[in-house]
């Protein structure tokens, strides 16, 4: 066994945690048998190979020294993959900076902090490579089977790209951290990560539409002007592409260069990582207080609506996520505009785009509404008898309807209906009274404000009451499962088991605790004496990563609901 305190010892520790996390996740917290998981994995791999066969087998015959058009196409694909890897790596590095997790333990120990962080940065690189290899593996295997073993060199290219992405992400995030400060760096890094991931593919699509009027990215790459601009086939620019095609020399050079880059990033950043993490711990979100004239009188409905908008506006995660979804709508909008620009009805063209936008937004908001944890809060609020028919899925749609079109909201109503059904099936759901709280469910409870001040239906309009509730609990740094369960860097540390569900679709976590504790740990700093977190709410981050639906702009409310239900808490707090 390795000696304590050495690089190998830390690596073993990280690996053990990552493996147990993965196993826990793969077996859905031990509910699924390992054999079932293995079979599912095998089926997935087989299906991926079939898909890969259909897509790339015809390219297997590509020579090690292909023509310029092929080199352009391969390089563009590699750049696309690299941008996605960079996006993933930046997210991981940001989390490593801002997540307290076990840093209190590690940094209060006499162990060498740079070693710990060197291992962590290497772990980020490894996770990026593993993810890329998992996705690219079937394609490489098919090409190798059809075209020869030289294609296996592409695995080396994937490793090189992963190392490069991790090195770039570490450098970029650290630079952001140092230039704009820890407070702004987090949001900016999140946005940069999202934009990097999306910009390249969207840019290609826009170029394709502009030149050919199609959504095909490769049409533009194969066009004469691009080929004319591209350097000669012997240029160094094509070495990564050659490495992918199995050119031994190119592969060795690309691998060596990328590993050197990663090594340099580790050597330069790891010793300063502790300082960055400590600086991140001091981050607060206090801003210069705005002069407030006083309370603005309004109806209860208006008051709640105003509060909702304020919370939405102040949620950087929601803003960046929505912006990204809008970004993905650019190509179809541009395509429509190109196709119908002479139709003298350009305003009409806005409608389908707005419908798509509203649909996406509605899906996202519905998801937020459903994933809310605070049925207890809803249940505890005064409700008129018989007022529990409408649920918060519908409330989310109300918001979306305000934002854009009824079309979007209509899509979400499906959630409402579905939820109603599932609520009956499951016995209690979001917005239901919990039997532990109410001895006689169905009766109004004497909790302020009284019914004549705020009607129950108005209160239920408050989708984000729950988010508020969770936030306030978050500030006290208690009771929350936080973070992305798939994050290989995550450390299940601190905290205690999730609160028992107060109603059907509550939020459960993965056992991930004490992430984002940076701010909580630094209680005194806010100008208002409070602490707050940046970015996605950790529960939401976990959920969104788990479903990967909203992030890719393919939110189907029912699917989201299913996700929420599947991950609803099962056990009790002990």
């Amino acid at each position, binding site marked *: 066994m390795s000696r*304590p*305190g050495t690089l190998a*010892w830390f690596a073993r*520790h990280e690996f*053990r*945690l990552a493996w*147990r*996390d993965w196993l*826990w996740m793969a077996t859905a917290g031990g509910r699924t048998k390992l054999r079932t998981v293995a079979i599912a994995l095998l089926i997935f791999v087989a299906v991926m190979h079939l898909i890969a066969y259909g897509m790339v087998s015809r390219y297997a015959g590509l020579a090690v020294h292909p023509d310029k058009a092929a080199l352009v196409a391969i390089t563009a694909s590699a750049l696309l993959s690299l941008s996605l890897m960079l996006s993933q790596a930046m997210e991981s590095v940001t989390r490593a900076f801002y997540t307290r997790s*076990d*840093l*209190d*333990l*590690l*940094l*209060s*120990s*006499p*162990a060498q902090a740079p070693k710990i962080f060197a291992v962590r940065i290497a772990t980020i690189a490894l996770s990026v490579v593993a993810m890329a290899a998992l996705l690219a593996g079937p394609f490489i295997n098919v090409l190798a089977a059809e075209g020869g073993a030289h294609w296996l060199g592409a695995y080396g290219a994937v490793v090189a790209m992963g190392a490069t992405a991790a090195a770039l992400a570490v450098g970029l995030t650290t630079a952001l951290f140092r230039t704009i400060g820890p407070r702004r760096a987090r949001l900016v890094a999140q946005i940069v990560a999202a934009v990097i991931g999306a910009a390249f593919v969207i840019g290609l699509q826009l170029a394709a539409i502009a030149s050919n009027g199609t959504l095909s990215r490769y049409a533009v790459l194969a066009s004469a002007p691009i080929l004319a601009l591209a350097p000669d086939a012997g240029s160094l620019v094509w070495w990564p592409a050659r490495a992918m095609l199995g050119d031994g020399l190119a592969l060795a050079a690309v691998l060596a260069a990328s590993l050197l880059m990663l090594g340099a990033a580790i050597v330069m950043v790891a010793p300063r990582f502790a*300082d960055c993490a*400590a600086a991140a*711990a*001091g981050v*607060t979100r*206090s801003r210069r207080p705005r002069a407030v004239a006083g309370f603005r009188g309004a109806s209860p409905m208006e008051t709640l609506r105003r509060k909702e908008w304020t919370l939405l506006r102040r949620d950087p995660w929601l803003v960046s996520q929505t912006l990204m979804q809008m970004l993905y709508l650019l190509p179809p909008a541009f395509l429509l505009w190109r196709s119908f620009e002479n139709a003298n009805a350009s305003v009409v063209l806005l409608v389908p785009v707005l419908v798509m936008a509203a649909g996406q937004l509605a899906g996202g908001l519905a998801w937020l509404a459903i994933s809310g944890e605070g049925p207890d809060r809803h249940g505890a609020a005064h409700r008129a008898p018989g007022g529990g028919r409408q649920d918060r899925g519908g409330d989310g749609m109300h918001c979306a309807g305000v934002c854009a079109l009824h079309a979007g909201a209509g899509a979400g109503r499906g959630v409402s209906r579905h939820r109603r059904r599932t609520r009956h099936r499951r016995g209690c759901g979001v917005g239901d009274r919990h039997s532990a709280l109410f001895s006689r469910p169905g009766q109004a409870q004497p909790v302020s404000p009284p019914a004549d001040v705020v009607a129950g239906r108005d209160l239920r309009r408050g989708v984000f009451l729950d988010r508020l509730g969770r936030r306030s609990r978050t500030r006290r*740094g*208690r009771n929350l499962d936080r973070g992305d369960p798939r994050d290989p860097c995550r*450390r*299940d*540390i*601190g*905290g*205690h*088991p999730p609160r028992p569900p107060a109603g059907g679709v509550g939020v459960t976590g993965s*056992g*991930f*605790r*004490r992430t984002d*504790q940076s701010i*909580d*740990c*630094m*209680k*005194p*700093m806010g*100008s208002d*004496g409070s602490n707050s977190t940046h970015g996605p709410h950790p529960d939401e981050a976990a959920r969104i990563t788990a479903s990967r639906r909203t992030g890719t702009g393919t939110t189907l409310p029912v699917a989201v609901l299913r996700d929420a239900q599947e991950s609803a808490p099962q*056990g009790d*707090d*002990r």
Partner: protein
Amino acid sequence: MSMRADPAFAIEIRELRKSFERPAVDGLDLAIRSGEFYTLLGPNGAGKSTTLRMVVGLLRPDAGSICVLGIDALADPVAAKQVMAWISDEPMIYDKLTPFEYLEFVGGLWGIDAAHAEARARGLIEWLGLGPHAHQRCESFSKGMRQKVALAGALVHEPRIIILDEPFTGLDTGSARQVKTVLREHVAAGGTVIMTTHILEVAERMADRIGVIARGRLIAQGTLDELRRQAGNGSSSPQNSSLEDTFLALVAEEAVAA
């Protein structure tokens, strides 16, 4: 362990300053004697946690000096960390490790000999009543059990100083009693305990001396009686006042002075 000559003070802080957007710790002077049970009190945002986090090396001060058992903690943080243990209000344990594995890891972090650490870990696990759960993963543990595991982690490397931030938050009565016993025994064995708490009854009963921090400065310090005298200037019956009255009076005086 890197033991130096036993100095009179376990912790000696001079002119400590740390600002974020406003001063969090503002010229704090504090001296805690070896073998003392010292409790830091103060309103929310007074700078208690920030001070302790600087002492254990989790934050770097803007100015000032920190000496831990005669070791300059800013110049030689590794040696200072070697003799300290830090327990925050959220127990720092890994969900995916068992208490036994966790103690092995912590022992490794502090560079304790494996055989010695194992024997000590077994003893601590039994002492804290964690025996039946020693090989279960911590993910299913209650807050009290987690705090006990964290405490065992702090004790496994036999620190001279234990620093705790709100250790009783969320603990049930039984667990709180056990934690108190552990801390008392540590002091009885010659160790030093420094703790922040909002539970004044704990401070009243357990602490040898109490320090009151407000606005990043130490505004009062001493035994309960000394604090009462300090707060009772002009009040009718200072000797009968509770620590709560004393604390509120001291903080109010400071607010008026500011």
